[in-house]
C-alpha cells in the first residue's frame, strides 16, 4: 500500500504558522504574552476579574445612595440586610458604601505610590548600574541609606510632621520603597551590561543612552512590571499598617486600613466590621501579587510551557 501524504495549501500554511509560534521572536508583543499567560492560569483569571470588579466598584462609589460619612445613630451596628449589604458601623453609616470609598483611597494611594516608586527607582537604578564608577558608588550609598533606615519608624515620625492626608501617605510610602526597586534595577543592569548583546551593541558604536533605552530597559521591563504589580500590593499593605497605627487619612474619610483600626475595638462582639475591610485588603493585595507572578512568567523568555 502506498502512503499518500497529502500536502495541500492548508497544511503548508499550518506548518508555517507553527514555526512562527515556536521561535523566540525578539519583538513579540508584550501584551499577547500577558494575555495568553493569564488565560492559561485559572487563579490569574480570577485575580483579574476581582481587580476589575473592585476598581469599577470603587470608581462607581459616588453612585451609592448613602453618604459614607453621615451619622445615623438609629442604625448603629445594624446587621447586614437588603438596604445595608455589609450592615452599619458604630455611627450608623452604611459599611458597604464606606468600603467602596475606602477602596478608592486605598487603590489610589497604592497606584500612585507605586508609580512614584518605580519612576524614581528605575531611573536611579539604571543610571547607577549602567554608568558605574563614582556615580554608581555615590548613588548606591544614597540608596543604601534609604534601605537601611527603619522605614516604619520614620514613616510614623514623618506622618506626624506633615499634614495628614493622601499626598503625605503617597510621599511617605514611595520615599521608603524606591530604594528596593533601585537595587533590583541596578543589579539587573549590571549583569545585563556584561551580556554579549550589550557589548556587541556598544562595539557597533551605539551611544550610552541609546544602549540604555533600547537594550537594557526592555529587558528590565519584565521585572519592572512585576515590581510594579507587587509594588501596588505592598503599598496597600503598608498603608493599612500606617492607618492601623492611626496615621492614615483623617476622619471621617475612610481607607480600608483605617476602617480596620476602628473595627479593632469591637472585634470581640462585632467581628464582621473587621472582616470586611480585612478581606478586601487581603484579596486585593492577593490579586496584585498573583498578577505580578503571572506577569513575570509571561514576560520571562526562558520559561518553557
Amino acid at each position, binding site marked *: 500500500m502506498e502512503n499518500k501524504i497529502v500536502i495541500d495549501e492548508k497544511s503548508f500554511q499550518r506548518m508555517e504558522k507553527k514555526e512562527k509560534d515556536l521561535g523566540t521572536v525578539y519583538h513579540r508583543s508584550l501584551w499577547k504574552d500577558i494575555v495568553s499567560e493569564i488565560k492559561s492560569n485559572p487563579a490569574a483569571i480570577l485575580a483579574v476579574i476581582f481587580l476589575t470588579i473592585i476598581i469599577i466598584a470603587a470608581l462607581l462609589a459616588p453612585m451609592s445612595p448613602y453618604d459614607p*460619612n453621615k451619622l445615623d*445613630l438609629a442604625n448603629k451596628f445594624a446587621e447586614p440586610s437588603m438596604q445595608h449589604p455589609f450592615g452599619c458601623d458604630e*455611627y450608623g453609616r452604611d459599611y458597604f458604601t464606606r468600603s467602596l470609598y475606602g477602596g478608592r483611597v486605598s487603590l489610589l494611594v497604592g497606584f500612585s505610590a507605586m508609580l512614584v516608586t518605580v519612576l524614581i527607582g528605575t531611573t536611579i537604578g539604571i543610571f547607577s548600574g549602567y554608568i558605574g564608577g563614582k556615580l554608581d558608588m555615590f548613588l548606591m550609598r544614597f540608596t543604601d541609606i534609604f534601605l537601611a533606615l527603619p522605614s516604619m519608624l520614620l514613616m510614623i515620625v514623618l506622618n*506626624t510632621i506633615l499634614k495628614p492626608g493622601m499626598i503625605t501617605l503617597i510621599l511617605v510610602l514611595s520615599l521608603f520603597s524606591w530604594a528596593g526597586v533601585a537595587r533590583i534595577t541596578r543589579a539587573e543592569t549590571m549583569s545585563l551590561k556584561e551580556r554579549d548583546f550589550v557589548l556587541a551593541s556598544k562595539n557597533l558604536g551605539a551611544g550610552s543612552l541609546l544602549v540604555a533605552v533600547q537594550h537594557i530597559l526592555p529587558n528590565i521591563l519584565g521585572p519592572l512590571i512585576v515590581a510594579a504589580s507587587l509594588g501596588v500590593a505592598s503599598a496597600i499593605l503598608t498603608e493599612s499598617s500606617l492607618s492601623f497605627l492611626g496615621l492614615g487619612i483623617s*476622619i471621617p474619610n475612610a481607607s480600608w486600613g483605617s476602617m480596620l483600626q476602628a473595627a479593632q*475595638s469591637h*472585634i*470581640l462582639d*462585632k467581628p464582621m466590621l473587621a472582616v470586611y475591610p480585612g478581606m478586601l485588603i487581603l484579596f486585593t493585595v492577593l490579586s496584585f501579587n498573583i498578577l505580578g507572578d503571572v506577569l513575570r512568567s509571561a514576560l520571562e523568555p526562558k520559561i518553557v510551557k
Partner: protein
Amino acid sequence: MKKKILALMLAAAMAMSMVACGSGDQGTAQKPAEETKTEQTTETKKEESTEKKEETPAAPAEEKDTFTVAISYMPDQLSPASGGSDDYTSMTRPLFDRLYMENNDGGIDYYMAESLDISEDGKTYTLKIRDDVKWSDGTPVTTKDIQFAIDFAILRYGRSSVTSINGNPVEIQVVDDKTMTFTLPEPYAYYIVSLSSLVPYPYHVFDGDAQKMLDDVTYYTKPGFATTGPYVVSEINEDSVVYTARDDYYRGTPSVKKVVMKVIGSGSTKAIAFENGEIDYMRLTTVDELEKYEAQSDKYNIYSFSEARLNYLQVNPYGPANLNDEQREALFYAINGDEVIDGAYGSDKLATNPNSILTPDISLYDPETPDYVYDLEKAKELAKSSGLEGMTLTYIYNADRPNMEAVAVVLQQQLSQIGVTLQIEGMDSSSFFPRFFAASSYGMNGQEKTWDLGTNGWDSMRGRTLNQAYSYLNQTNNAWGLTPTCGELAYKVNTCTDPEQAKAKASEVVKIALDQHRIYPLTYTNYIIVSQKNVTGLDKHPIVPEFADYLDISVNG
C-alpha cells in the same frame, strides 16, 4: 565546594550579626557558627533568655489574694519623682502614699497626714504627720522627707508648686519632726490642691541631698526600695512588676497580698486578656461594652463613679479663621450636646450633658448655671449673616483620650448642617499639648495659629476650689480669649474665705465666661470599671487615676 562554603559563610554571617547585637550586657555563650538547625539554635537562644531573667524566686503566681492590673508600657524605674502619665500614676499608687486627698464630698481623706488645719484668715496651713507612719525599711516618715521633696522640685524644675503664690513666696517652717507650717502671703484656696500633690521623698536614702536623688539611676530600678504605701516592689521582670503587701503599713494590712502589673498589648487585646482571666479589671468607654458585661452579672462586677472630669470644646482666639462673636454664637447654637453624648458615648451612664465649666464634684458648682441652647434654625440664620457658612475650620483633638475621636465625628456632622466644614486632626498627647496650649503654656511657639477648634479635658475637678478652671479663667497671654474680668473674679473666688460668698462669685464668673462663647462644656464623664466577680471594693474611694486606696480592694477565693 564553593557553594558549600557559601552556605556556611551565610549561616555564620547571620549568626555573627545576631550575636554581635545580642551579647550586649552579658558575655553570652558564643553561638557555634555552623548552627543552621532550627531546634538547636532556638534552644541556645532560650537559654540566653532564661539566664537574663531577674534572679528572683520563681514561685508560681497565687491565684487567691493576687490582683492583676494591665499597663500599657513597661516603665524603666518606679520613682515617685517620675511622672507624666495617668498610667504611671496608677502604677505608683500602691507604693507612695499622699499626705491627704480631697474627696468627692468636699472633704479630706487623710493618709500620711494626721491633720491639716487652715487658719481663720486662710493664710496659715498647719500640717501634722501621723506618728506611726514608716518607710518600708523602718525609718519613720518625717517633715524632713517633705522638705526634701520640695528641695528636689526646686532643683529639678526651678520651682515647686508650694513655694510661691502669684510670684510671692510662701513661708515654710518646720516646727518639729512631724509638724510643718506654710504661711501664704494672701489667702489662696487652691493651695490645698497643691499641697495634696506633694509626695514625700526618702530623705534618709539620699542623705538629704537632692542632687544625689536627681543623679541616681539605679535605686528605683531594683526591687525592695523604700516605700510609704501598702506595698513594696518584690519583682521586676521584662514585662511585669510584682508588689507584695507590707505587714507594717500604718493603716493596716491589705487583704490583697500581691499586686501584679503586666504589660498587655494594644487594641482589643486588653478585652481578650480580661475575658481570659489574665487581668482583674478594665475600664469601659462605650455603651456596647457596658451592656455586654452588665448582661453577665454572674461573672463580672460593674463599678461606676464620677470621673470628676470636664471635657470641653475651645475656640482658639489666635486661630486662622479669626471667628468673631456672631460666628461663635452660630457655632454654639449648632451644637447639640445631647446628640454628642448619644453619638460618642452611647448612653448617659457614661457621660452627662454639662451646664457649667465646673463639675458637680466641686462644692462651688451651681446647678442653675444656664447651659448653651441647641437651636439649629437660629444657628443657620446666624451662620449666614455672619459669614460663617462655607468656612473650613481646623479641629484638633487628643487621640490618647477615650471617646474624643467619636466626639469629633459627631461635631463634624452637626457643624456641616450650618455649612461649616471641619478639617479634623487627631494626635498623641506629646503633639497635642504644645499645640493646644501654645499660647498659654508654651510661650506662643507659633502653633497657636494652626487650629481653630479643639477638645480637651480637665481632670480631678473636685474639692472646694475652682481647681483647673482657675488657671483657665486667669489665663496667660489671652490664651483663651476671655475678658480680664474673668481673671479678676476668679482671683477673688480663690482668695475669698467665706464659702457662701465664694460660691456666689463662682457662679458669676462662670456665667460671664460662658456668655463669651469661647468654651463649650461637652461632658461630665463617669469612670466605669468592670472587674472579675471575685474582685470587690474598687469604688470605695472613687478617685481617678485608680486606685486611691488599695486597702479597699479584696480578691476573694
